[in-house]
């Protein structure tokens, strides 16, 4: 849904930055509103939007806020290239352009309903999963046990730590497991890579696994889950490829007969298995 009249999907809306939180040394979370103060659009957990600084570049980012947030949308963005560096230099009150929401979403209203959920995230990979987690917490009665395993390079690189401690850890029937890659002064939690910690905890297979993080983490987490007895049909992740149009036409994110921007970014592992191995 987009309010740009007859031009639709390729012409963006203006988004005004109404809040900025420095999450980690290289991740900031931006609150974005429509110029009149409302939300830009309604979305579902897992969906993405094209955020652009005109004259710099445009990029696809997952919407990290939950649809249950009725006031604004949030994007957690890691500084790692030309566009993200410029985004990090923006201030409250600055405007960007936003197109979306694009893509499919996690099946929170269908396959996930009534199920136990195991979220496994690494680094900035928490961004898309946070939308799902908060959606589930705000509709707590619709879901069973929620386990969240989240790891980062260091304690300083854990995104949304405040919210994790203040909200998620205190929510009913939710277990949060945090880990960092290397020992660090002042950290008395678990130390070790996410896939290793996953095996140490040894989750039972009575749940759906939802994985997001760097490709190497996803690879070993998937291996771990399968050793633990999870099937491909029980595991969800998101794919990320280069995108320009966001509506399945420009051809960049084409894999087999799918477009990641439109048919994804959320895929079940058995669906990924059917794609040519080119992602």
């Amino acid at each position, binding site marked *: 849904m987009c309010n740009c009249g007859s031009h639709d999907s390729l012409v963006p809306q203006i988004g005004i930055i109404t809040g900025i939180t420095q999450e980690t040394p290289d991740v900031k979370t931006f609150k974005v509103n429509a110029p009149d103060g409302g939300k830009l659009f309604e979305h579902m957990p897992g969906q993405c939007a094209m955020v652009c600084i005109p004259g710099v570049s445009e990029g696809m980012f997952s919407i990290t806020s939950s649809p249950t947030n009725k006031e604004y949308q949030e994007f957690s963005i890691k500084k790692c290239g030309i566009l993200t560096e410029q985004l990090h230099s923006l201030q409250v009150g600055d*405007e960007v352009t936003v197109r979306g929401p694009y893509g499919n979403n996690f099946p929170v209203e269908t396959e996930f309903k009534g199920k136990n959920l195991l979220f496994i995230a690494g680094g900035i990979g928490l961004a898309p999963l946070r939308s799902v987690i908060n959606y589930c917490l705000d509709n707590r009665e619709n879901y069973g046990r929620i386990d969240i395993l989240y790891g980062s390079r260091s304690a300083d690189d854990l995104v949304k730590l405040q919210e994790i401690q203040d909200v998620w850890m205190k929510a009913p029937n939710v277990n949060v497991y945090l880990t960092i890659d290397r020992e660090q002064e002042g950290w008395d939690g678990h130390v070790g890579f996410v896939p290793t910690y996953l095996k140490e905890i040894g989750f039972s297979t009575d749940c759906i696994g939802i994985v997001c993080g760097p490709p190497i983490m996803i690879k070993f987490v998937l291996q771990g889950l399968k050793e633990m007895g999870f099937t491909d049909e029980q595991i969800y992740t998101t794919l990320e490829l280069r995108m320009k149009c966001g509506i399945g036409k420009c051809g960049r994110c084409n894999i087999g007969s799918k477009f990641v921007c439109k048919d994804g970014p959320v895929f079940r592992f058995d669906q990924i298995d059917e794609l040519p191995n080119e992602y």
Partner: protein
Amino acid sequence: MYKISLDNINSLFAAIAESKELFLPVKKAGQANYANWTEDCEVALDSLKTVKSPKDAFFPQFETLYKVNRKIIPTDASEEEGSETLVETKLRTKLEITPTELKDKDFVVFGMKSCDVKGIEALDKVFLTDPVDNFYKARREHGIIVALACHEPEESCFCTVFGVDPADPSKAKADVATWIVDGELYWKAISEKGEELTKSVASLLSDAADDAADAEISNITNIMTKLPNTKLSLEGWGEGKTDEKFNSEVWNELYKPCLGCGTCTFVCPTCQCYDIKDYSTKDGIQRYRCWDSCMYSDFTLMAGGQNRTSQVQRFRQRFMHKLVYFPDRYGMYSCVGCGRCVDKCPQSLNVVKVIKAFENEKKEAGANV
């Protein structure tokens, strides 16, 4: 059926151009390409294939989507007082977006061959599928296609393999079908839009019997049966063939001469991949889209180095897309057998060679059993 003498054809063009833009094959520097008709241009209706396909008429090589004006303005000081969120500088970036107006004037694409009309069908599948590309849709609504039979198909032609009839453009999804026979242009409206166009130029047309066009149809059909590439078989391609074809060893040798120059994608009537970029001008930033090519190494390149990092992967992608993925998604091939890639690839690599290489593989495999 109507007709008009070719001696008088310029008056037809002038009549059409009076109320509509007219886009047709024009010879310039020895090459025929679609361009706007002007009184002094050299119309090349006799050219079988323009170098580039006429897809520009609906999907231009370059088009501005919208303009953004960026203003750095000081924020109101009174508003800022007491606010905790605003920090340091008082300058803020404000944006104003002005979308490019959609096409709102009728235009005629004159002389399109049946293969190129079929190419537009493939583009329709992409651009008119939800979410619809309204820039394209507006052009499709306002575009009137006058198709022309292929008087003398060439060796590189193989459109019949993809179910195209080069002899009878009334079978194509065009608005008017035409044939050129013995100095006359024969004219038959085949859609509502075509009827209207016919009415608007009726005073220049005279009634004609079907005989001349019928004779031309059988003449062209006869030529096609003799062309070497029309014997190609598409067996083994199409829906559901991803695993078999993607994992074939054939690609590893076949791709080698490919330079990754992208010529094939630019002359192709169905290639629709595009880029979106910014262009800074004195009075704002223009956000435009332009054709791009899956043959280029940076087409899919991301910060992490992925994906399709080798030319063999990119080469395979182009042909898998045309012959397997596109049929999987849209139920038709994304090749219309126009033969432009056959004519233009500097390394003589093309879709015909790809299909033949797999045919040969099959034969060899059969011989080994």
